[in-house]
């Protein structure tokens, strides 16, 4: 009984994950600039990767593999590392891109960061 429940939860998680991954890849293509694409990439990393990894672990736990605990533990550690690593990576990349002025922030409503940076440079001169 508990095996069946675990399998069904795992399948639901994987199904949600694959939907998020597909939507994120469409968003990566449709969005206009780098900074907006960051949000699509977040959907891809949290919804499209974190959830299905845990789902795969649950399915393994509900099956009759010989070393299923090893499988489950490895996948859980992988999911935790993905959750820690993806925000740090996208933050570092976004900051460097904004500082180097490589990608445009257009279209935009405001850009307070650029205003503050310009103010600081004005003080230095």
């Amino acid at each position, binding site marked *: 009984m508990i095996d069946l429940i675990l399998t069904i939860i795992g399948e639901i998680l994987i199904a949600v994950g694959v939907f998020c*991954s597909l939507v994120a890849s469409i968003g990566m293509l449709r969005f206009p600039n780098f900074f907006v*694409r960051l949000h699509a990439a977040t959907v*891809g990393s949290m919804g499209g990767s974190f959830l299905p990894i845990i789902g795969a672990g649950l399915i393994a736990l509900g099956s009759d*593999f010989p070393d299923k605990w090893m499988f489950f533990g490895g996948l859980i550690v992988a999911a935790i590392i993905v959750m820690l690593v*993806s925000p740090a990576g996208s933050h570092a990349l976004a*900051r460097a891109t904004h500082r180097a002025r490589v*990608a445009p922030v257009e279209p935009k409503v405001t850009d307070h960061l650029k205003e503050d940076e310009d103010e600081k440079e004005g003080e230095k001169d």
Partner: protein
Amino acid sequence: MDTQVFTFIMIILPIYLVSLLLYLIRAFKGPTISDSVLSIDAFSFAAIAVMGILSLFFKSLVLVSIAILLSVWTYALDVFVSKYLEKKEMGE
């Protein structure tokens, strides 16, 4: 493992393949370097999920450790590129 999970994985995998290919189109098109690197990120994380699901399919637990290595090295690649773009020496 029952056949129902097997069929489920068979339906899931082609969709992931499509999503991987769409990420790679952005990596190829990306007007700036940052776009390409961001889509490599997304590609690797999707690939990690594919690896987890495929190791269910192959019933071999040994393939899991590679997923962890892939995620960490992808993070390292992000950090290299952002350090390169920050216009500092790499070691400072």
